[in-house]
């Protein structure tokens, strides 16, 4: 993969909370692909994604999105460039309806809101019947669909998904990963997905990186990830 094809370049990243580093020396690049970040609970996946979305402070290193250094940007500026973030929890605005949640995401872009909403329905058809429901009344799976749909409404070109299937039933998990696969190809969006569910993530990912004990492995093709390496990362 050539340098210019990189959607995201992360170099020497150190991040954490209150001056304490959770992750250090993280380097990777993401192209037009699905890039999976695997790791056990507490490995720093959420911290990494929140940092890439510029919600967490960057203690060292650089983050470059499509050639623009976003290290000094705030979250809303990064989002303006086309970085969409779907958090693991509290990903919807509970007092707003599903339709309003989608509309909140529609601030950027040239296409009409209606056109974008219709596109979201093609990936998550179940939402069509729930448009006027308050998002706070939705199930966990439906909430994730709303959050993901809202990120697509932003005309995102890089989608950061933080454990999108955590706590969901197997049916929702496979439905969601199928939607991710379709989004990748039909919208041509680069996707970074942090997951504990390695089996499902590896099913859709082109490349993968494993987080363990505050460090990141070198990125590799999903097919190259051995069971031994995974067991080591998950400390099994």
């Amino acid at each position, binding site marked *: 993969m050539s340098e210019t094809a990189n959607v995201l370049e992360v170099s020497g990243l150190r991040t954490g909370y209150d001056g304490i580093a959770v992750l250090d020396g993280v380097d990777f690049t993401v192209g037009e692909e699905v890039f999976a970040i695997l790791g056990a609970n507490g490995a720093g996946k959420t911290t990494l994604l929140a940092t890439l*979305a510029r*919600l967490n402070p960057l203690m060292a290193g650089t983050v470059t999105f499509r050639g623009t250094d976003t290290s000094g940007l*705030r*979250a*809303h*500026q990064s*989002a*303006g460039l086309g970085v969409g*973030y779907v*958090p693991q929890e*509290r*990903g919807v*605005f*509970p*007092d*707003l*309806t599903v*339709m*309003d949640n989608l*509309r*909140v*995401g529609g*601030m*950027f872009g040239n296409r009409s809101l209606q056109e974008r909403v219709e596109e979201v329905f093609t990936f998550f058809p179940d939402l069509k019947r729930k*448009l*006027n*429901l*308050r998002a706070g009344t939705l199930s966990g799976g439906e909430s994730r669909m709303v959050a993901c749909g*809202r*990120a697509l409404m*932003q005309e995102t070109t890089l989608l950061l998904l933080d454990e999108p299937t955590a706590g969901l039933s197997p049916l929702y998990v496979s439905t969601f990963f199928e939607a991710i696969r379709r989004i990748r190809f039909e919208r041509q969006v680069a996707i970074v997905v942090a997951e504990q569910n390695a089996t499902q993530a590896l099913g859709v990912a082109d490349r993968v990186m494993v987080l363990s004990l505050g460090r990141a492995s070198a990125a590799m093709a999903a097919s190259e990830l051995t069971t031994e390496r995974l067991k080591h990362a998950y400390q099994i």
Partner: protein
Amino acid sequence: MVLDTFLITGLFNVVMLIGLALLLHLQLGLTRIANFGVVGFWGVGLYTFGVLYVRVDWPFEDPIQFVVCAVLATAAAGLCGLLIGWLIADLDVDGVLVGTLGFATAVAILATTEQGLTGGARGMGGLRFPYDSGDVAVNELIWLLVLVALVAGILAYVWLVHRAPYGRLLIAIGSNEPLARSLGKPVTRTKLGLFTITSALMGLLGVMYGVMVRFLEVSSLGIEVTLATVVGLVVGGSVRVLGAVVGVLLTVGFFDIVIQSYLPLPAEWYTQTIPLMREVLFGVALILVLVFRPLGLLGHMRRDRLMKRIHGG
């Protein structure tokens, strides 16, 4: 027929508090900015207007003098809103609460100590209506109607905000600020803009009050205005547009107008017992609502129904 002066004053307070509660609804109910210093912004408008109107030798007469002083006082309250809003922008709810309460306290202390300007604890007279019908009761009634028009305008604005993308943004920020940021929303700028405008309007309501009472007393800068506003809003339902209206009517309206005007209470109660009883009853009402109906008497926002009405489906 001109209404009784006592009743006009009571109605004026109720309508003014409805206006304040509507503005607090935008701050607290939608955007979750826990402004506990309502009286501070209201007081900046009140005292800035009073000082400008009485102390400055203007080269023009009323009503231009009133308009100029009112505009400057409103702008002063808005400026305070901008400054305080900037200071509290990144604080959590506790910090916002303490910060705004501290601001209101500072305003009260300033009004008390700057005796040369404000008359301090002695108060300051010299305010008057920007018109004269020749009858004080008629002047007061007209002023009440002006206030009703102003508060109706605020109500219409709040109603429109609920139906506009701006309202959606305020609710989004109130629900989950980091998430709103991650969606590209200018959260700080939006909060600052809202806080500035609503604080300015609180100041304008202070101006209206100053003209009505025509005498500035530092005792009016106590916690009572904030308390009555918060209690009214919470009792009615802080996330509903009409929550502010219903809540203030049921608390302040019921107590200040129905009880005080129509119940045969002993005259000696009016000095100490009734004000204390008012605070106690407001406190009890607040506790009962929080325990049995935490979202207020009008309950949840029911935005789903509102959106269905607007968009169908």
